[in-house]
Protein backbone atom coordinates (compact mmCIF):
# COMPACT_ATOMS: atom_id res chain seq x y z
CA UNK A 1 0.00 0.00 0.00
CA UNK A 2 1.43 3.42 -0.88
CA UNK A 3 1.74 5.99 1.85
CA UNK A 4 -0.14 8.98 0.54
CA UNK A 5 0.70 10.95 3.64
CA UNK A 6 4.10 11.38 1.99
CA UNK A 7 2.46 13.71 -0.49
CA UNK A 8 2.09 17.32 0.58
CA UNK A 9 -1.53 17.60 1.69
CA UNK A 10 -1.92 14.05 0.51
CA UNK A 11 -1.82 15.43 -3.03
CA UNK A 12 -5.09 17.22 -2.37
CA UNK A 13 -4.03 20.81 -1.82
CA UNK A 14 -6.05 21.60 -4.95
CA UNK A 15 -9.26 20.49 -3.22
CA UNK A 16 -9.02 22.67 -0.13
CA UNK A 17 -11.66 25.06 -1.39
CA UNK A 18 -9.41 28.09 -0.87
CA UNK A 19 -8.92 29.15 -4.50
CA UNK A 20 -10.71 31.87 -6.46
CA UNK A 21 -14.37 31.15 -7.28
CA UNK A 22 -14.13 27.90 -5.30
CA UNK A 23 -17.87 27.92 -4.60
CA UNK A 24 -18.26 26.98 -8.29
CA UNK A 25 -14.83 25.92 -9.53
CA UNK A 26 -13.21 22.96 -7.81
CA UNK A 27 -9.87 23.01 -9.50
CA UNK A 28 -7.83 24.18 -12.45
CA UNK A 29 -5.36 21.99 -14.28
CA UNK A 30 -2.88 22.91 -17.01
CA UNK A 31 -0.96 20.15 -18.68
CA UNK A 32 1.82 20.23 -21.24
CA UNK A 33 2.55 17.22 -23.45
CA UNK A 34 6.27 16.73 -24.16
CA UNK A 35 8.36 14.00 -25.79
CA UNK A 36 12.06 13.29 -25.91
CA UNK A 37 13.45 13.44 -29.44
CA UNK A 38 15.81 10.60 -28.56
CA UNK A 39 13.17 7.86 -28.26
CA UNK A 40 10.13 6.54 -30.14
CA UNK A 41 6.85 7.92 -28.81
CA UNK A 42 5.25 5.76 -26.15
CA UNK A 43 2.74 3.82 -28.32
CA UNK A 44 5.64 2.62 -30.52
CA UNK A 45 8.22 2.31 -27.77
CA UNK A 46 9.79 -0.80 -26.30
CA UNK A 47 9.94 -1.46 -22.56
CA UNK A 48 13.66 -0.55 -22.76
CA UNK A 49 12.78 2.83 -24.34
CA UNK A 50 10.34 3.58 -21.54
CA UNK A 51 12.82 2.56 -18.85
CA UNK A 52 15.38 4.89 -20.46
CA UNK A 53 12.87 7.78 -20.55
CA UNK A 54 12.02 7.20 -16.90
CA UNK A 55 15.68 6.99 -15.87
CA UNK A 56 16.58 10.17 -17.82
CA UNK A 57 13.73 12.20 -16.36
CA UNK A 58 14.22 11.01 -12.78
CA UNK A 59 17.95 11.77 -13.01
CA UNK A 60 17.54 15.36 -14.26
CA UNK A 61 14.54 16.04 -12.00
CA UNK A 62 16.94 15.91 -9.04
CA UNK A 63 18.85 18.88 -10.52
CA UNK A 64 15.73 21.05 -10.73
CA UNK A 65 14.07 23.21 -8.11
CA UNK A 66 10.56 22.32 -9.18
CA UNK A 67 11.04 18.54 -8.94
CA UNK A 68 14.08 17.88 -6.74
CA UNK A 69 11.93 16.72 -3.83
CA UNK A 70 9.43 14.90 -6.02
CA UNK A 71 8.05 11.57 -4.89
CA UNK A 72 8.20 8.91 -7.59
CA UNK A 73 5.51 6.28 -7.95
CA UNK A 74 6.26 3.42 -10.32
CA UNK A 75 2.76 2.47 -11.37
CA UNK A 76 3.92 -0.84 -12.82
CA UNK A 77 4.80 -1.98 -9.30
CA UNK A 78 1.64 -0.75 -7.54
CA UNK A 79 -1.51 -2.68 -6.65
CA UNK A 80 -4.68 -1.85 -8.56
CA UNK A 81 -6.28 -0.09 -5.57
CA UNK A 82 -3.25 2.20 -5.20
CA UNK A 83 -3.33 3.08 -8.87
CA UNK A 84 -7.04 3.73 -8.67
CA UNK A 85 -6.42 5.96 -5.64
CA UNK A 86 -3.95 8.12 -7.58
CA UNK A 87 -6.43 8.31 -10.44
CA UNK A 88 -9.25 9.32 -8.11
CA UNK A 89 -7.02 12.12 -6.84
CA UNK A 90 -6.70 13.34 -10.42
CA UNK A 91 -2.94 12.79 -10.32
CA UNK A 92 -2.84 10.23 -13.15
CA UNK A 93 -5.00 9.40 -16.14
CA UNK A 94 -7.12 6.30 -16.36
CA UNK A 95 -4.86 4.98 -19.12
CA UNK A 96 -1.64 5.45 -17.14
CA UNK A 97 -3.27 3.87 -14.09
CA UNK A 98 -4.00 0.78 -16.17
CA UNK A 99 -7.73 1.11 -15.49
CA UNK A 100 -8.76 1.42 -19.13
CA UNK A 101 -9.97 -1.33 -21.37
CA UNK A 102 -7.97 -3.61 -21.39
CA UNK A 103 -6.53 -3.13 -17.91
CA UNK A 104 -2.83 -3.03 -18.65
CA UNK A 105 -0.18 -1.03 -16.84
CA UNK A 106 2.59 -0.16 -19.23
CA UNK A 107 6.09 -1.07 -18.05
CA UNK A 108 7.83 2.18 -17.10
CA UNK A 109 4.57 4.03 -16.32
CA UNK A 110 5.33 6.42 -13.45
CA UNK A 111 4.30 9.58 -11.64
CA UNK A 112 6.50 12.27 -10.16
CA UNK A 113 4.76 14.67 -7.82
CA UNK A 114 5.93 17.68 -5.88
CA UNK A 115 3.67 20.32 -4.35
CA UNK A 116 1.11 21.39 -6.92
CA UNK A 117 2.91 19.94 -9.92
CA UNK A 118 3.25 16.47 -11.29
CA UNK A 119 4.74 14.61 -14.23
CA UNK A 120 3.13 11.54 -15.73
CA UNK A 121 5.78 9.43 -17.41
CA UNK A 122 5.27 7.11 -20.37
CA UNK A 123 1.66 8.09 -20.81
CA UNK A 124 0.62 8.56 -24.46
CA UNK A 125 3.48 11.09 -24.50
CA UNK A 126 6.77 10.58 -22.69
CA UNK A 127 6.00 13.43 -20.33
CA UNK A 128 2.71 14.95 -19.33
CA UNK A 129 3.59 17.87 -17.06
CA UNK A 130 0.76 19.23 -15.00
CA UNK A 131 -0.04 22.02 -12.62
CA UNK A 132 -3.08 21.69 -10.34
CA UNK A 133 -4.61 24.53 -8.36
CA UNK A 134 -7.61 24.94 -6.14
CA UNK A 135 -10.41 27.03 -7.65
CA UNK A 136 -10.25 29.06 -10.85
CA UNK A 137 -6.54 29.79 -11.27
CA UNK A 138 -5.39 29.35 -14.86
CA UNK A 139 -2.43 31.72 -14.66
CA UNK A 140 -1.09 30.21 -11.45
CA UNK A 141 -1.47 26.63 -12.67
CA UNK A 142 0.29 27.55 -15.92
CA UNK A 143 3.10 29.34 -14.07
CA UNK A 144 3.66 26.17 -11.98
CA UNK A 145 3.82 23.85 -14.97
CA UNK A 146 5.81 26.31 -17.09
CA UNK A 147 8.56 26.27 -14.45
CA UNK A 148 8.78 22.48 -14.65
CA UNK A 149 8.78 22.63 -18.45
CA UNK A 150 11.59 25.18 -18.56
CA UNK A 151 13.77 23.32 -16.09
CA UNK A 152 13.34 19.93 -17.76
CA UNK A 153 13.61 21.35 -21.29
CA UNK A 154 17.01 22.86 -20.46
CA UNK A 155 18.28 19.40 -19.53
CA UNK A 156 16.47 17.02 -21.87
CA UNK A 157 16.03 17.27 -25.66
CA UNK A 158 12.29 17.79 -26.23
CA UNK A 159 10.91 16.95 -29.68
CA UNK A 160 10.23 20.31 -31.37
CA UNK A 161 9.53 21.26 -34.98
CA UNK A 162 10.04 24.86 -36.18
CA UNK A 163 6.63 25.02 -37.82
CA UNK A 164 4.52 22.55 -35.80
CA UNK A 165 5.97 23.26 -32.35
CA UNK A 166 6.16 20.60 -29.64
CA UNK A 167 5.60 17.19 -31.19
CA UNK A 168 3.20 14.74 -29.65
CA UNK A 169 2.14 11.21 -30.25
CA UNK A 170 -1.37 12.32 -31.28
CA UNK A 171 -1.65 15.25 -33.69
CA UNK A 172 -4.51 16.71 -31.64
CA UNK A 173 -1.98 17.79 -28.98
CA UNK A 174 0.78 19.16 -31.20
CA UNK A 175 1.99 22.79 -31.01
CA UNK A 176 1.84 24.08 -27.47
CA UNK A 177 0.89 20.65 -26.11
CA UNK A 178 -1.24 22.63 -23.69
CA UNK A 179 -4.56 21.49 -22.36
CA UNK A 180 -6.05 23.68 -19.66
CA UNK A 181 -9.15 22.47 -17.87
CA UNK A 182 -11.40 23.95 -15.27
CA UNK A 183 -13.54 21.62 -13.15
CA UNK A 184 -16.75 23.49 -12.56
CA UNK A 185 -20.06 22.74 -10.83
CA UNK A 186 -23.08 23.81 -12.89
CA UNK A 187 -26.31 22.61 -11.26
CA UNK A 188 -28.11 25.91 -11.95
CA UNK A 189 -27.62 25.56 -15.68
CA UNK A 190 -28.66 21.90 -15.55
CA UNK A 191 -31.83 22.64 -13.58
CA UNK A 192 -32.82 25.55 -15.82
CA UNK A 193 -32.11 23.30 -18.82
CA UNK A 194 -29.70 25.85 -20.25
CA UNK A 195 -26.69 23.55 -20.06
CA UNK A 196 -26.99 22.09 -23.58
CA UNK A 197 -27.02 25.55 -25.11
CA UNK A 198 -24.00 26.59 -23.09
CA UNK A 199 -22.04 23.46 -24.00
CA UNK A 200 -22.94 23.82 -27.67
CA UNK A 201 -21.83 27.44 -27.53
CA UNK A 202 -18.50 26.39 -26.03
CA UNK A 203 -17.97 23.83 -28.81
CA UNK A 204 -18.47 26.61 -31.36
CA UNK A 205 -15.68 28.67 -29.84
CA UNK A 206 -13.17 25.82 -29.80
CA UNK A 207 -13.74 24.54 -26.27
CA UNK A 208 -14.84 21.13 -25.14
CA UNK A 209 -16.16 19.50 -21.99
CA UNK A 210 -15.53 16.24 -20.21
CA UNK A 211 -16.70 14.50 -17.06
CA UNK A 212 -15.26 14.47 -13.56
CA UNK A 213 -12.28 12.27 -14.48
CA UNK A 214 -11.32 13.85 -17.80
CA UNK A 215 -11.26 12.27 -21.23
CA UNK A 216 -13.92 9.63 -21.83
CA UNK A 217 -15.46 10.01 -18.38
CA UNK A 218 -19.10 10.60 -17.58
CA UNK A 219 -20.64 13.74 -16.18
CA UNK A 220 -21.58 12.99 -12.57
CA UNK A 221 -22.82 15.35 -9.90
CA UNK A 222 -23.14 18.19 -12.43
CA UNK A 223 -19.35 18.58 -12.58
CA UNK A 224 -17.99 19.56 -15.97
CA UNK A 225 -14.37 19.89 -17.05
CA UNK A 226 -14.15 22.72 -19.56
CA UNK A 227 -11.01 22.82 -21.69
CA UNK A 228 -9.45 24.01 -24.93
CA UNK A 229 -9.96 21.74 -27.92
CA UNK A 230 -7.07 22.91 -30.10
CA UNK A 231 -3.42 23.33 -29.14
CA UNK A 232 -1.86 24.79 -32.29
CA UNK A 233 -2.05 28.18 -34.01
CA UNK A 234 -2.41 30.15 -30.79
CA UNK A 235 0.13 31.02 -28.11
CA UNK A 236 -0.11 29.55 -24.63
CA UNK A 237 -1.32 32.89 -23.33
CA UNK A 238 -4.00 33.18 -26.01
CA UNK A 239 -5.28 29.68 -25.21
CA UNK A 240 -5.44 30.48 -21.48
CA UNK A 241 -7.04 33.89 -22.05
CA UNK A 242 -9.68 32.43 -24.32
CA UNK A 243 -10.60 29.63 -21.91
CA UNK A 244 -10.52 32.05 -18.98
CA UNK A 245 -12.84 34.48 -20.71
CA UNK A 246 -15.31 31.75 -21.58
CA UNK A 247 -15.23 30.21 -18.08
CA UNK A 248 -15.97 33.63 -16.59
CA UNK A 249 -18.93 33.81 -18.94
CA UNK A 250 -20.13 30.36 -17.84
CA UNK A 251 -19.76 31.40 -14.18
CA UNK A 252 -21.94 34.45 -14.88
CA UNK A 253 -24.56 32.25 -16.60
CA UNK A 254 -24.53 29.83 -13.67
CA UNK A 255 -24.97 32.64 -11.14
CA UNK A 256 -27.80 34.02 -13.24
CA UNK A 257 -29.49 30.61 -13.48
CA UNK A 258 -29.30 30.24 -9.68
CA UNK A 259 -30.93 33.60 -9.17
CA UNK A 260 -33.69 32.66 -11.61
CA UNK A 261 -34.30 29.42 -9.69
CA UNK A 262 -34.46 31.22 -6.35
CA UNK A 263 -36.79 33.86 -7.76
CA UNK A 264 -39.14 31.64 -9.77
CA UNK A 265 -39.21 28.28 -7.97
CA UNK A 266 -37.83 28.85 -4.45
CA UNK A 267 -39.82 26.04 -2.85
CA UNK A 268 -38.77 23.47 -5.43
CA UNK A 269 -35.12 24.43 -5.02
CA UNK A 270 -35.24 24.42 -1.24
CA UNK A 271 -36.96 21.06 -1.32
CA UNK A 272 -34.36 19.62 -3.70
CA UNK A 273 -31.46 20.89 -1.63
CA UNK A 274 -32.82 19.72 1.72
CA UNK A 275 -33.89 16.34 0.35
CA UNK A 276 -30.30 15.85 -0.87
CA UNK A 277 -29.00 16.84 2.55
CA UNK A 278 -31.52 14.62 4.31
CA UNK A 279 -30.57 11.58 2.27
CA UNK A 280 -26.85 12.09 2.81
CA UNK A 281 -27.43 12.68 6.51
CA UNK A 282 -29.58 9.62 7.16
CA UNK A 283 -29.36 7.08 4.31
CA UNK A 284 -28.02 3.63 5.19
CA UNK A 285 -26.65 2.75 1.72
CA UNK A 286 -25.23 5.09 -0.89
CA UNK A 287 -23.79 4.29 -4.31
CA UNK A 288 -20.99 6.51 -5.61
CA UNK A 289 -23.12 8.10 -8.36
CA UNK A 290 -25.98 8.77 -5.96
CA UNK A 291 -23.56 10.34 -3.49
CA UNK A 292 -22.15 12.62 -6.19
CA UNK A 293 -25.62 13.75 -7.22
CA UNK A 294 -26.69 14.39 -3.62
CA UNK A 295 -23.47 16.24 -2.89
CA UNK A 296 -24.23 18.38 -5.91
CA UNK A 297 -27.58 19.31 -4.35
CA UNK A 298 -25.99 20.15 -1.00
CA UNK A 299 -23.22 22.15 -2.69
CA UNK A 300 -25.90 24.14 -4.49
CA UNK A 301 -27.64 24.70 -1.15
CA UNK A 302 -24.41 25.97 0.40
CA UNK A 303 -23.80 28.22 -2.61
CA UNK A 304 -27.29 29.69 -2.34
CA UNK A 305 -26.92 30.27 1.39
CA UNK A 306 -29.72 27.81 2.18
CA UNK A 307 -27.42 25.44 4.08
CA UNK A 308 -25.06 27.25 6.39
CA UNK A 309 -23.39 24.68 8.56
CA UNK A 310 -21.58 22.66 5.90
CA UNK A 311 -18.24 23.98 4.65
CA UNK A 312 -16.79 23.64 1.15
CA UNK A 313 -13.83 21.75 2.56
CA UNK A 314 -16.14 19.09 3.99
CA UNK A 315 -17.98 18.80 0.69
CA UNK A 316 -14.70 18.43 -1.18
CA UNK A 317 -13.47 15.89 1.34
CA UNK A 318 -16.66 13.89 0.88
CA UNK A 319 -16.23 14.11 -2.88
CA UNK A 320 -12.75 12.60 -2.63
CA UNK A 321 -13.20 10.06 0.15
CA UNK A 322 -16.45 8.51 -1.04
CA UNK A 323 -14.77 7.38 -4.26
CA UNK A 324 -14.40 3.58 -4.36
CA UNK A 325 -10.64 3.23 -3.84
CA UNK A 326 -10.44 5.96 -1.22
CA UNK A 327 -13.31 4.54 0.77
CA UNK A 328 -11.96 1.01 0.43
CA UNK A 329 -8.56 2.07 1.80
CA UNK A 330 -10.21 4.03 4.59
CA UNK A 331 -12.41 1.09 5.55
CA UNK A 332 -9.85 -1.63 4.93
CA UNK A 333 -11.96 -3.50 2.37
CA UNK A 334 -11.74 -4.07 -1.38
CA UNK A 335 -13.16 -1.41 -3.77
CA UNK A 336 -15.50 -4.03 -5.27
CA UNK A 337 -16.80 -5.26 -1.89
CA UNK A 338 -20.65 -5.15 -1.89
CA UNK A 339 -20.42 -3.76 1.65
CA UNK A 340 -18.93 -0.54 0.22
CA UNK A 341 -22.26 1.30 -0.21
CA UNK A 342 -23.13 0.67 3.45
CA UNK A 343 -19.70 1.92 4.55
CA UNK A 344 -20.07 4.95 2.30
CA UNK A 345 -23.38 5.94 3.88
CA UNK A 346 -21.84 5.46 7.33
CA UNK A 347 -18.83 7.61 6.44
CA UNK A 348 -20.99 10.41 4.99
CA UNK A 349 -23.31 10.42 8.02
CA UNK A 350 -20.33 10.63 10.34
CA UNK A 351 -18.69 13.54 8.55
CA UNK A 352 -21.91 15.54 8.31
CA UNK A 353 -22.70 14.82 11.95
CA UNK A 354 -19.27 16.13 12.99
CA UNK A 355 -19.88 19.24 10.91
CA UNK A 356 -23.31 19.98 12.31
CA UNK A 357 -22.62 18.67 15.78
CA UNK A 358 -25.43 16.14 15.86
CA UNK A 359 -25.41 12.40 15.35
CA UNK A 360 -27.86 10.79 12.92
Amino acid at each position, binding site marked *: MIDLSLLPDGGMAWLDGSGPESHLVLSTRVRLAR*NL*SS*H*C*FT*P*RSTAADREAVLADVVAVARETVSLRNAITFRLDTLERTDRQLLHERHLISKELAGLG*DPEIVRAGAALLVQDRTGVMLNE*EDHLRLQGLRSGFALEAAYADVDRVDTEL*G*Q*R*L*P*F*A*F*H*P*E*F*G*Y*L*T*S*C*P*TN*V*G*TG*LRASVLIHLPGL*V*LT*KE*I*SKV*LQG*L*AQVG*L*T*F*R*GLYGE*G*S*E*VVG*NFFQLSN*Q*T*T*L*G*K*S*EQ*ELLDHLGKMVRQVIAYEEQARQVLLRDVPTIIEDKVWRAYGLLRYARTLSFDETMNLLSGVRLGVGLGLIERVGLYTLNKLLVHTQPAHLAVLEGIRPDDPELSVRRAHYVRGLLADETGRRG
Partner: protein
Amino acid sequence: MRCDQCHERDAVVHLTQIAQDQVVTLHLCEKCAAEKGVESGASVGKSPVGQFLATMGKGMEAGGAMPGPGSGGSCPGCGATLTDFRESGRLGCATCYRTFEASLRDLLRRLHGSSRHLGERYAPPGEGPVAPADSAIQLRHQLKLAVDTEDFELAAELRDRLRAVEGEA
Protein backbone atom coordinates in the same frame (compact mmCIF):
# COMPACT_ATOMS: atom_id res chain seq x y z
CA MET B 1 -18.29 0.13 -22.51
CA ARG B 2 -21.00 -0.91 -24.99
CA CYS B 3 -23.12 1.49 -27.03
CA ASP B 4 -26.46 2.24 -25.29
CA GLN B 5 -28.23 2.17 -28.65
CA CYS B 6 -27.05 -0.93 -30.53
CA HIS B 7 -25.44 -2.74 -27.56
CA GLU B 8 -22.89 -4.13 -30.02
CA ARG B 9 -20.07 -1.69 -30.66
CA ASP B 10 -17.89 0.11 -28.15
CA ALA B 11 -19.19 3.50 -27.03
CA VAL B 12 -16.89 6.33 -28.06
CA VAL B 13 -19.21 9.33 -27.85
CA HIS B 14 -20.62 10.36 -24.48
CA LEU B 15 -23.67 12.53 -25.03
CA THR B 16 -24.99 14.49 -22.11
CA GLN B 17 -28.66 15.35 -22.26
CA ILE B 18 -31.10 16.87 -19.86
CA ALA B 19 -34.21 14.86 -19.08
CA GLN B 20 -36.58 15.76 -16.25
CA ASP B 21 -34.05 17.96 -14.51
CA GLN B 22 -31.44 15.21 -14.55
CA VAL B 23 -28.26 15.00 -16.51
CA VAL B 24 -28.37 11.80 -18.52
CA THR B 25 -25.28 10.61 -20.29
CA LEU B 26 -25.78 8.42 -23.34
CA HIS B 27 -22.86 6.30 -24.44
CA LEU B 28 -22.89 5.80 -28.19
CA CYS B 29 -20.71 4.22 -30.83
CA GLU B 30 -19.59 6.39 -33.76
CA LYS B 31 -22.29 4.94 -36.00
CA CYS B 32 -25.25 5.41 -33.67
CA ALA B 33 -23.96 8.86 -32.70
CA ALA B 34 -23.80 9.83 -36.38
CA GLU B 35 -27.34 8.49 -36.93
CA LYS B 36 -28.54 10.69 -34.08
CA GLY B 37 -26.75 13.62 -35.69
CA VAL B 38 -24.68 14.07 -32.57
CA GLU B 39 -21.80 16.48 -32.67
CA SER B 40 -20.36 16.29 -29.18
CA GLY B 41 -17.08 17.89 -28.22
CA ALA B 42 -15.43 14.52 -28.66
CA SER B 43 -16.87 13.78 -32.07
CA VAL B 44 -16.09 17.27 -33.35
CA GLY B 45 -12.50 16.71 -32.36
CA LYS B 46 -12.42 13.24 -33.76
CA SER B 47 -14.10 13.65 -37.06
CA PRO B 48 -11.37 15.56 -38.92
CA VAL B 49 -8.81 12.93 -37.92
CA GLY B 50 -11.19 10.18 -38.88
CA GLN B 51 -12.01 11.72 -42.22
CA PHE B 52 -8.41 12.49 -42.97
CA LEU B 53 -7.20 9.05 -42.01
CA ALA B 54 -9.95 7.48 -44.08
CA THR B 55 -8.89 9.55 -47.08
CA MET B 56 -5.29 8.52 -46.60
CA GLY B 57 -6.33 4.89 -46.37
CA LYS B 58 -8.26 5.03 -49.62
CA GLY B 59 -5.31 6.61 -51.39
CA MET B 60 -3.03 3.87 -50.20
CA GLU B 61 -5.36 1.00 -50.93
CA ALA B 62 -5.96 2.31 -54.45
CA GLY B 63 -2.23 2.72 -54.90
CA GLY B 64 -2.83 6.41 -55.53
CA ALA B 65 -0.17 9.04 -54.98
CA MET B 66 0.02 10.27 -51.40
CA PRO B 67 -0.16 14.02 -51.02
CA GLY B 68 3.07 15.96 -50.97
CA PRO B 69 6.67 15.01 -51.45
CA GLY B 70 8.45 12.87 -48.90
CA SER B 71 5.25 11.50 -47.42
CA GLY B 72 5.44 7.97 -48.77
CA GLY B 73 7.39 4.99 -47.48
CA SER B 74 8.35 4.47 -43.89
CA CYS B 75 9.82 6.78 -41.30
CA PRO B 76 13.63 6.42 -41.06
CA GLY B 77 13.35 7.15 -37.33
CA CYS B 78 11.00 4.39 -36.25
CA GLY B 79 9.88 2.50 -39.35
CA ALA B 80 6.26 3.63 -39.04
CA THR B 81 4.23 4.08 -42.22
CA LEU B 82 1.17 6.16 -43.00
CA THR B 83 -0.83 2.94 -42.75
CA ASP B 84 0.35 2.55 -39.15
CA PHE B 85 -0.76 6.12 -38.47
CA ARG B 86 -4.10 5.48 -40.13
CA GLU B 87 -4.70 2.47 -37.94
CA SER B 88 -3.54 3.87 -34.62
CA GLY B 89 -4.05 7.63 -35.03
CA ARG B 90 -0.62 8.04 -33.39
CA LEU B 91 2.74 9.05 -34.84
CA GLY B 92 5.72 6.81 -34.08
CA CYS B 93 8.43 9.35 -33.28
CA ALA B 94 9.57 12.94 -33.83
CA THR B 95 11.04 12.05 -37.25
CA CYS B 96 7.57 10.97 -38.46
CA TYR B 97 6.60 14.64 -38.48
CA ARG B 98 9.35 15.38 -41.02
CA THR B 99 8.79 12.20 -43.02
CA PHE B 100 5.05 12.83 -43.44
CA GLU B 101 5.28 16.61 -43.19
CA ALA B 102 3.10 17.54 -46.15
CA SER B 103 0.28 15.17 -45.19
CA LEU B 104 0.45 16.23 -41.58
CA ARG B 105 0.40 19.93 -42.41
CA ASP B 106 -2.95 19.38 -44.09
CA LEU B 107 -4.27 17.34 -41.16
CA LEU B 108 -3.10 19.88 -38.58
CA ARG B 109 -4.88 22.66 -40.45
CA ARG B 110 -8.09 20.67 -40.37
CA LEU B 111 -7.71 19.84 -36.70
CA HIS B 112 -6.48 23.14 -35.35
CA GLY B 113 -7.28 25.62 -38.10
CA SER B 114 -3.55 26.27 -38.52
CA SER B 115 -0.32 24.34 -38.88
CA ARG B 116 1.85 27.05 -37.39
CA HIS B 117 2.99 26.98 -33.79
CA LEU B 118 2.71 30.44 -32.28
CA GLY B 119 3.59 29.49 -28.74
CA GLU B 120 6.88 29.39 -26.90
CA ARG B 121 9.97 28.63 -28.97
CA TYR B 122 12.35 25.95 -27.87
CA ALA B 123 15.92 24.90 -28.50
CA PRO B 124 17.21 21.61 -27.08
CA PRO B 125 20.08 21.84 -24.59
CA GLY B 126 23.42 22.62 -26.25
CA GLU B 127 21.90 23.99 -29.45
CA GLY B 128 22.42 27.69 -28.78
CA PRO B 129 19.82 30.39 -28.35
CA VAL B 130 16.15 29.84 -29.05
CA ALA B 131 15.25 30.80 -32.64
CA PRO B 132 12.96 33.80 -32.87
CA ALA B 133 9.35 32.95 -33.64
CA ASP B 134 9.24 34.76 -36.96
CA SER B 135 11.80 36.77 -38.81
CA ALA B 136 10.90 38.58 -42.00
CA ILE B 137 13.71 36.77 -43.85
CA GLN B 138 12.49 33.35 -42.70
CA LEU B 139 8.91 34.17 -43.57
CA ARG B 140 9.80 35.46 -47.05
CA HIS B 141 11.74 32.26 -47.68
CA GLN B 142 8.82 30.11 -46.51
CA LEU B 143 6.38 32.19 -48.55
CA LYS B 144 8.43 31.64 -51.69
CA LEU B 145 8.50 27.89 -51.00
CA ALA B 146 4.74 27.83 -50.43
CA VAL B 147 4.09 29.68 -53.70
CA ASP B 148 6.51 27.43 -55.59
CA THR B 149 4.71 24.34 -54.30
CA GLU B 150 1.32 25.96 -54.99
CA ASP B 151 0.34 25.67 -51.32
CA PHE B 152 -1.79 28.79 -51.46
CA GLU B 153 -3.46 28.32 -48.10
CA LEU B 154 -0.10 28.32 -46.36
CA ALA B 155 1.06 31.17 -48.60
CA ALA B 156 -1.87 33.32 -47.50
CA GLU B 157 -1.15 32.56 -43.85
CA LEU B 158 2.54 33.40 -44.31
CA ARG B 159 1.71 36.59 -46.18
CA ASP B 160 -0.45 37.77 -43.26
CA ARG B 161 2.27 36.92 -40.77
CA LEU B 162 4.88 38.69 -42.87
CA ARG B 163 2.71 41.81 -42.97
CA ALA B 164 2.27 41.64 -39.21
CA VAL B 165 6.04 41.25 -38.63
CA GLU B 166 6.87 44.07 -41.04
CA GLY B 167 4.19 46.22 -39.43
CA GLU B 168 5.80 45.71 -36.02
CA ALA B 169 9.27 46.66 -37.32
